[in-house]
């Protein structure tokens, strides 16, 4: 089963707007290399799972993966061929809200070249532009 919350306070949420840069979760904290978003967007649970598999297949036990995003928000959808109205649709899938600067994945135990190659594979699966980043100077 893809990632999703175990308990929620509300099943459905309004869409809202993603404004500003990330002020939390924007530093490489656990590994040595991080995949940082440079755009705002929604990353679905299925995409996170696909990225996890791609990274694990590349590093093959030689490194460690840290997933820094979690799909907390539900996205609703209306069934096909139904008329408009009759209220909001039912939850269809779960997404993680990503702001510019959010670190989505971190890996450790591999060199820069390997991290770059690994994250290049992941970048193809993501709906946002990303970049490789390292720890801040002096940390």
């Amino acid at each position: 089963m893809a990632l999703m919350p175990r308990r929620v306070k509300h099943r459905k949420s309004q869409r809202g707007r993603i404004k500003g840069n990330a002020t939390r979760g924007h530093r490489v904290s656990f590994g040595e290399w991080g995949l940082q978003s440079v755009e705002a967007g929604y990353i679905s649970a299925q995409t996170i799972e696909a990225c996890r598999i791609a990274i694990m297949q590349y590093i093959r036990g030689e490194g460690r993966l840290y997933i820094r995003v979690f799909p907390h928000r539900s996205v609703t959808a209306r069934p096909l061929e139904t008329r408009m109205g009759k209220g909001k649709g039912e939850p269809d899938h779960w997404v993680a809200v990503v702001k510019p600067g959010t670190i989505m994945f971190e890996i450790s135990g591999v060199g820069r070249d390997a991290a770059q190659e690994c994250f290049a594979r992941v970048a193809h699966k993501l709906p946002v532009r990303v970049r490789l980043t390292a720890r801040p100077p002096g940390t």
Partner: protein
Amino acid sequence: MAHDTKSLVVEPRLLTGTANSRRLRSTGKVPATLYGLNQDPVSVALAGDDITPVVVSGHKIVDIEVEGTTSIAMIREVQWDTFLTHILHVDLQRVDSDTRVDIELVIVIRGEVNEGVLEIVERSIMVNCPVFLVPDSPVVRVGSLKIDDTVTIADLDFPDKVSVELPDDTVILRVNEVQDIEIEAEDVSSALEPEVIGRESEDEDEDAE
């Protein structure tokens, strides 16, 4: 060994607060605060081109000249923007030239292991040293390490007057065997809904009525 002390000429900052700091940054300067040694804290402005190379190169102790008065200061904290491109603020703490200070040193790892997986246990260590003997970040070369090898605090070289707070046998990094793992794709098709907080209790209340 110890760094060459860098000198920074700063100017006092009379306008403080978020908006004024933002305006200051747009002119290429970095807001900073100088405090410590039982003196009043002073808000100052640093030239961005001066402070950034000092921070990136790992210098911890700097000479600060404010209106003709020079004092020794330690770079206590540096705030970066989201993408690590600009310094937003610097905390500078005045220190006496004859005192000892606690400083966190990042352990620099060079090279890549030829076999196994490198597990980093400690990324930085706290050291106590005289102000003018702040050592460079310790460098660990991992190219020649084999499986089950470990590097401890005792393997790092420090000058005599520098003391490390952690015990000598503290492991900094070790090389583990590569583990064979099976990558299983999770079933993403099943769409179970999460439990809604408070929903059961409402239902129970309705039943009771």
